[in-house]
């Protein structure tokens, strides 16, 4: 269930009812983050961090805005920052780098969606998660990622093409399963 579906049930004001906001968006934010970082443990930590930041900034939320889009903006920024840090850690300290997930989890979670998302860069992944899972509009995604709506559209079509090729390629599948 995406943010768009939540919107029809009525908006929650983060300033006055943060507990309800958490209850309503906790899983969506967690799954969106996990769809970008592809690590369950890191996704939980980043979800907690997202709500911490949202709680701190709840007074800045503009009434009439979409709390789901607001939360997803914080979540996506945190997720992309996390991936940047991880990449840097892998580059700088390859011997010390330890993935957040347990090895068994890395194999078990290689479902179709994860295989498809794994083939994408973090920026493309964010577009896919926000459009296909959170079901935000292109304009909302553009505001979150601070890019023009046209860029969102082109990223989305690129992502779909890459995902299609990834899932259609049996060699890629075997390689993923063998790893």
């Amino acid at each position, binding site marked *: *269930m995406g943010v768009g579906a939540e919107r029809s049930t009525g908006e929650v004001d983060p300033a006055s009812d943060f*507990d309800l906001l958490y209850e309503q968006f906790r*899983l969506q934010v967690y799954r969106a983050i996990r769809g970008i970082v592809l690590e*369950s443990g890191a996704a939980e930590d980043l*979800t907690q961090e997202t709500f911490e930041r949202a709680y701190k900034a709840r007074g800045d939320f503009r009434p009439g805005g979409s709390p789901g889009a607001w939360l997803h903006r914080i979540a996506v920024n945190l997720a992309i920052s996390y991936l940047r840090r991880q990449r840097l850690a892998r580059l700088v300290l390859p011997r010390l780098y330890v993935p957040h997930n347990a090895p068994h989890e890395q194999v078990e979670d290689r479902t179709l969606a994860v295989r*498809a998302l794994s083939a994408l860069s973090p920026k493309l992944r964010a577009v896919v998660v926000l459009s296909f899972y959170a079901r935000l509009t292109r304009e909302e995604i553009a505001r979150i990622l601070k890019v023009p709506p046209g860029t969102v559209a082109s990223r989305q079509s690129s992502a779909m093409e890459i995902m299609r090729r990834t899932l259609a390629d049996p060699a890629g599948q075997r390689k993923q399963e063998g790893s």
Partner: protein
Amino acid sequence: MQQRPYAHDQPDQDEELWTELISSEMDAWQPHRLPRAFRPRRRMGRLDRRLLTLMAVAVVLAVLALAVFAGVSRGVVSRVVDLGHPEPVKSPSVQPTSVPEPAPDATPAGSGEGVGGVLVARLPGPSRDDSVDAAGA
């Protein structure tokens, strides 16, 4: 003219399919550690900050006080030690040899010599008039 629905609908269909695939898998993801109710981490309040500042100031003052006290006590100790081993006090009367004592009559009054010299020369011993007075008493 007949419209071509395929060309227009194909991207939407693709998007629907991807939405279905991704959502169905992602909806199965469940967090293990994430709490059901939001519990903000305890952040440092204004009162805590003030308390921390006060404590920091108190620590700095205590350290300063200790340093000063240590300096003072060292001074006091050294004074006490000095009292235990007094050094001879040097005064001009103990070392009269430094100034030659002129004979009372050698220098005529108002000869223009320094006043200090005259005074120092007379200080060590009683004057002749004094000794006479004492003898008379």
